[in-house]
């Protein structure tokens, strides 16, 4: 599973992307957040407040209960500020 980070999420994690293989009990975005937060202090800081985070699965905005599966591209970022 490819995970991408943008803006301050990227800065806190310390990487723009990584390939991860979460355990099978990680089935949705919320579960992936909980699991990623354990990977490093940087991850923990980035994922500390889930309310500040938004996610996309396969380049579509996705809510916390959106399913994730091996092979997916999952991205985490702050609320967008386009325009």
């Amino acid at each position, binding site marked *: 599973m490819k995970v991408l980070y*943008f*803006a301050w999420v990227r800065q806190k994690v310390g990487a723009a992307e990584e390939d991860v293989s979460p355990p099978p009990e990680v089935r949705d975005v919320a579960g992936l957040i909980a699991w990623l937060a354990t990977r490093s202090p940087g991850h923990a800081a980035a994922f500390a407040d889930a309310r500040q985070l938004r996610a996309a699965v396969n380049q579509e905005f996705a809510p916390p209960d959106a399913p994730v599966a091996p092979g997916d591209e999952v*991205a985490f970022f702050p*609320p*967008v500020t386009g325009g």
Partner: protein
Amino acid sequence: MPVVPRVLVQEAPFDMGAETAALFAGRADVGGLASFLGICRGDGGLVAMTLEHYPGMTERALRRIAEEACARWPLTGCTVIHRHGRLVPGDPIVLVLTASAHRVAALDSCAFLIDWLKTKAPFWKSEEFAGGTTRWVEAKAEDDEAAARWGR
């Protein structure tokens, strides 16, 4: 059948005059052309703004937003160009152009597009101030409200 919008995500500047002309030159069915140009401001000592985006998803999201406008209003043309990278005060950031037989469709769809871009296009802005401090621009509740008035 809805028109196919022209959508560009690029670091380079764009030519607003040429983009505008392309939507009505040589045709007789365009009665109104609305546009919005978003420009980098230099408030509070801001010296630059860097726009980060999500390559792939950005183009997809912009295209979907523009297609939504083309489906909701009877447009004869629609162009959305959004820049990324480092911009300084006075630099254009985003251009929205909508053309229609009548003014209301052009004006409303232009306002719709910029409202939805604010909240649905995967860009993040890092502000850089005199003295070297930087800050991520936070999403605004008023932008969510503006986007929400168009439904869905």
